[in-house]
C-alpha cells in the first residue's frame, strides 16, 4: 500500500540518488580545470537557468516550506504583508550589486566575498576581518540548517515501518553512549543521513554540483507549489469560499487537562499526539502523546487544543464520522482554557492585520514590524554572503538580466501561491496549531489522498528537502572557501600547490559539516534565536561596507573594517539590550523597528565618519577599480 510516509521515504531515496548523479557529473565536468576556481565558483561559467535557480533556491531555505506555511496557518492573511518585501527582492539583491561585484571579482581574480574586499583595498587585514566575521556568523547558519534537515526528515518519515525499525536499532546501539543517548534516536538517524548525503555531494561535486542540484531543487519546489495550489483551490471550493470561511474563524484555545476513560471502556488506551476527541459540545485535539491505564482510568496532565469556531467543529465531526482523522471516545477534563492574547473571540481576525497572536497583546504584525520587513527582506538578502558569492559566478550581464526576470517570476509565483495555499489550509485542516511545522507535509498528504493520487505526495514533500539541502550546501561551501582560500592560502601557506589545496578543501568541507552535525545532536535551546542573530549579523556586517567599496571612490579599508565592526557591534549591542530587557536571546526593537535597520544605520554612520576623518584612499586603486574604461 502506498501511503504518505513510505512515499516520503521513496521520494527521499530517489531524490538522494539524483543528487549523487549530479555530483558525479559535476566532478567529470570539473576534470582538467583549475581546482580552486572550479570547486568554489564553478569557473564563473553559469548561464541563466543555473544562476537564476541557484540564487532562488539558496534564498528559499527550510523556513520557506516549513516555518512560513506554519506562520500563514497560524496568523492568516497578514503574512501577505509580512512577505511583501520580496516583491523587489530579485532586482535589489541581484542587480544593484551584481554587475559591479562580478567585474571587481574578475578584475582581481577574487573567488570569495572577503577576497573581493581584500583586493579592492589591497589590504590583507580587511580580508582577514571579513573572513573571521563571516565564519563566525555563518557557522550558526549551518548548524541551524542541519537541525532543520534532520527535523524535516524526522517529521516526514515518522510513521514509516522501515524507518521505525532502524530507529529502534539505533536506540539500542546509542543507549550507553554518552552524548548520543540524550538525543532522540529518530532525529539522530535523520541527522546522520542528511549530513552524510549533503557533505558527500558537496565534497565530490563542489560548487558546480551545488548549483546543478539547486537547479533541480528549484524546479522541484516550483512544481510542488503549483500542484499544491491547484489541488488546494479545487478541494476548498475556490479562494473566495475559503476567505469567507476564514472570516468566521476565531483562534483556538489551549489548556492543560486530564483525559478520562468513559464508563463503558473495557481497556486502557494509548493516546497519540494529534488525536481528536468529540466531547459533547467541545471538539478537542490532543497536543502530546499520553497513556491511559485501565486501572487508573485517567491520563497524566496533557496539553490540548479546543476549537472555537462552529464551522471548524462541524468539519472535524464530519471527518471523525468518515474515519478520515484519528479520534478517541474519551472524557476531557480541563479547568481553564487559555485564550489568545490578541484576536480571541474576534471573527475576521485572520483576514486583517496585525493578525492573531497567542502570547503578544499587540498581535502578530505591528505597524513598525510591517515597515521593517519591507526593508529587511530585500536588503538582508542582498547582504548574505551565500547570495553575494553567486553574483561572482554568472558569465555575462545578459545572464544577470535574464536571471532577474526568472527570479522575479519565480518568487512572485512561489510566495503568493504559498500564502493562498496555507490560508486555505486553515479551512481544510483545523487544529494544526498543536504542531504548525507539520502543516506542509500533512496538507500534502491530505490533498493527494483526497485527490486519489497518494503517490503525488512524493513530489510535494520533496520541496522542503530541496529547500534545506540547497541552503546547507551553499553555506558549507562559503565557510570552506573562507577557511581555505582566505585564511590558509592567504596567511598560512601562500605557495601551497593545487594537490594540497584540493585535499585541504575536501578536509575542511567535511570537518565543517561534521562539526555542525555534532553541535546539533543536542541542539542548544536558543537555536532559532541564533539563526535570527546570524541572518541579521551577516547582512549588518557586509552590506554597507561592500556596497560603498564597490560604488564610492573615497571608501577606504579602514572605513570598511570600521563599517563591518559598526554593523556587528550595533547588532550585538541591541541583542544584549534585548536580553537585558526581555530576558530572552532576542534583539531589542528600538522604536518598534527591526534591529536590522539600526544595524545598517550603525554600519553606514561608522563608514562615513571614518572616511571623513581617516586615511585617504589610494589613487592607484581608484584608477584600477573605478577609472578603467569598459
Amino acid at each position, binding site marked *: 500500500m502506498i501511503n504518505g510516509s513510505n512515499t516520503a521515504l521513496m521520494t527521499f531515496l530517489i531524490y538522494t540518488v539524483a543528487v549523487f548523479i549530479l555530483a558525479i557529473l559535476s566532478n567529470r565536468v570539473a576534470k582538467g580545470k583549475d581546482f*580552486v*576556481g572550479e570547486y568554489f565558483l564553478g569557473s564563473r561559467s553559469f548561464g541563466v537557468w543555473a544562476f537564476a535557480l541557484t540564487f532562488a533556491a539558496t534564498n528559499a531555505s527550510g523556513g520557506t516550506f516549513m516555518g512560513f506555511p506554519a506562520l500563514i496557518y497560524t496568523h492568516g492573511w497578514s503574512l501577505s*504583508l509580512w512577505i*511583501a518585501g520580496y*516583491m*523587489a527582492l530579485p*532586482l535589489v539583491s541581484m*542587480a*544593484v550589486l551584481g*554587475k*559591479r561585484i562580478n*567585474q571587481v571579482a*574578475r*578584475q582581481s*581574480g577574487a*573567488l570569495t566575498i572577503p577576497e573581493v574586499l581584500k*583586493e579592492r583595498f*589591497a*589590504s*590583507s*587585514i*580587511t580580508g582577514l576581518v571579513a573572513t573571521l566575521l563571516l565564519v563566525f556568523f555563518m557557522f550558526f547558519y549551518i548548524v541551524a540548517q542541519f537541525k532543520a534537515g534532520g527535523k524535516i526528515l524526522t517529521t516526514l518519515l515518522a510513521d514509516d515501518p522501515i524507518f521505525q525499525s532502524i530507529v529502534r536499532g539505533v536506540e539500542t546501539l546509542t543507549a550507553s553512549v554518552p552524548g548520543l543517548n540524550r538525543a532522540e534516536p529518530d532525529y539522530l538517524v535523520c541527522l546522520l543521513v542528511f549530513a552524510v548525503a549533503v557533505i558527500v555531494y558537496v565534497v565530490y561535486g563542489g560548487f558546480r554540483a551545488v548549483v546543478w542540484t539547486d537547479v533541480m531543487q528549484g524546479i522541484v519546489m516550483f512544481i510542488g507549489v503549483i500542484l499544491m495550489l491547484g489541488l488546494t483551490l479545487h478541494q476548498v471550493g475556490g479562494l473566495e469560499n475559503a*476567505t*469567507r470561511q476564514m*472570516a468566521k474563524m476565531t483562534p483556538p484555545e489551549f489548556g492543560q487537562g486530564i483525559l478520562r476513560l468513559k464508563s463503558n471502556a473495557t481497556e486502557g488506551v494509548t493516546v497519540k499526539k494529534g488525536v481528536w476527541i468529540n466531547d459533547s459540545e467541545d471538539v478537542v485535539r490532543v497536543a502530546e502523546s499520553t497513556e491511559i491505564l485501565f486501572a487508573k482510568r485517567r491520563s497524566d496532565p496533557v496539553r490540548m487544543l479546543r476549537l472555537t469556531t462552529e464551522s471548524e467543529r462541524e468539519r472535524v465531526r464530519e471527518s471523525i464520522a468518515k474515519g478520515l482523522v484519528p479520534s478517541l471516545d474519551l472524557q476531557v477534563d480541563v479547568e481553564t482554557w487559555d485564550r489568545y492574547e490578541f484576536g480571541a473571540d474576534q471573527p*475576521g481576525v485572520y*483576514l*486583517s*492585520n496585525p493578525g492573531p497572536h497567542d502570547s503578544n497583546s499587540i498581535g502578530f504584525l505591528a505597524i513598525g514590524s510591517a515597515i521593517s520587513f519591507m526593508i529587511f527582506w*530585500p536588503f538582508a538578502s542582498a547582504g548574505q554572503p551565500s547570495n553575494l558569492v553567486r553574483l561572482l559566478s554568472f558569465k555575462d*550581464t545578459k545572464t*544577470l*538580466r535574464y536571471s*532577474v*526576470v526568472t527570479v*522575479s*517570476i519565480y518568487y*512572485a509565483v512561489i510566495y503568493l501561491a504559498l500564502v493562498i495555499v496555507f490560508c486555505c489550509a486553515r479551512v481544510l485542516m483545523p487544529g494544526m496549531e498543536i504542531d504548525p511545522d507539520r502543516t506542509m507535509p500533512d496538507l500534502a498528504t491530505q490533498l493527494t489522498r483526497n485527490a486519489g493520487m497518494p503517490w503525488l505526495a512524493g513530489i510535494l514533500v520533496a520541496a522542503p528537502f530541496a529547500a534545506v539541502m540547497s541552503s546547507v550546501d551553499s553555506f558549507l561551501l562559503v565557510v570552506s572557501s573562507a577557511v581555505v582560500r582566505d585564511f590558509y*592560502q*592567504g596567511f598560512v601557506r601562500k*605557495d601551497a600547490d*593545487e594537490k594540497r589545496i584540493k585535499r585541504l578543501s575536501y578536509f575542511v568541507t567535511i570537518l565543517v559539516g561534521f562539526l555542525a552535525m555534532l553541535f546539533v545532536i543536542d541542539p542548544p535551546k536558543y537555536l532559532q534565536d541564533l539563526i535570527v542573530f546570524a541572518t541579521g549579523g551577516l547582512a549588518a556586517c557586509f552590506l554597507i561596507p561592500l556596497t560603498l567599496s*564597490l*560604488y*564610492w*571612490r*573615497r571608501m577606504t579599508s*579602514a572605513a570598511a573594517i570600521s563599517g563591518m565592526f559598526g554593523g556587528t557591534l550595533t547588532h550585538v549591542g541591541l541583542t544584549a539590550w534585548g536580553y537585558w530587557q526581555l530576558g530572552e536571546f532576542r534583539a531589542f526593537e528600538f522604536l518598534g523597528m527591526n534591529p536590522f535597520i539600526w544595524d545598517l544605520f550603525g554600519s553606514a554612520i561608522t563608514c562615513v565618519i571614518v572616511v571623513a576623518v581617516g586615511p*585617504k584612499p*589610494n*589613487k*592607484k*586603486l*581608484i*584608477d*584600477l577599480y*573605478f577609472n*578603467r*574604461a*569598459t
Partner: protein
Amino acid sequence: MRVGFFSKQGNQGAQRSLVDRSFREAKWMLLLWFVSSVWTLGYCLTYGYAPIDPNDLEISFGMPSWVFWGVGLPWLTTMSISIGFALVGIQDDDLGVVESALDQSPHETTSGGIPILDVSEDAVPSSLDSPSDEEVTGNQGGTDRSSNQGEGT
C-alpha cells in the same frame, strides 16, 4: 553592445564606465523598491489594519480587498517593472576577463599590479601615490562625470 534604456545615449553614454552605469541603474532599482514599498505600506496601513466584519466582507479576486490592492497588485506591478527594467533598463557590459591568477594564492593576486598590503592604505609604500585631497574630493560619490575624463570623452 546593447545600451540600456536609462543610459545616456551617444558618445558620452557609451564612454561612461561600468561603475557609473551600474550606479545609475542601481538608483532606478532602489527607486522602484521605494515606490513599491510606499504603495504597499500606504495602502495596507490605511485599509489592512481595520477590523473586518464577517458579514460585510470586501473581497477582490477571492482575497480580502486590502491584500489584492495593497500586496497582490503592487507585487505584480513591481514584478512587471523589474522584468522590463532587466530587459531594457540594464545595459549589457563587458565584465572583463578573469585574471589568470585564479589558482594562485590570494596574496599573489595583485590587484592589477598593485601588491597586496598587510596594512591599510594610510601606510601605502612610497611607490604607490596617494591622491591629493582635491583629487579624492573630486570623485565623491562615484558619480562625478569628471572622474571619467581619462576615458577619452
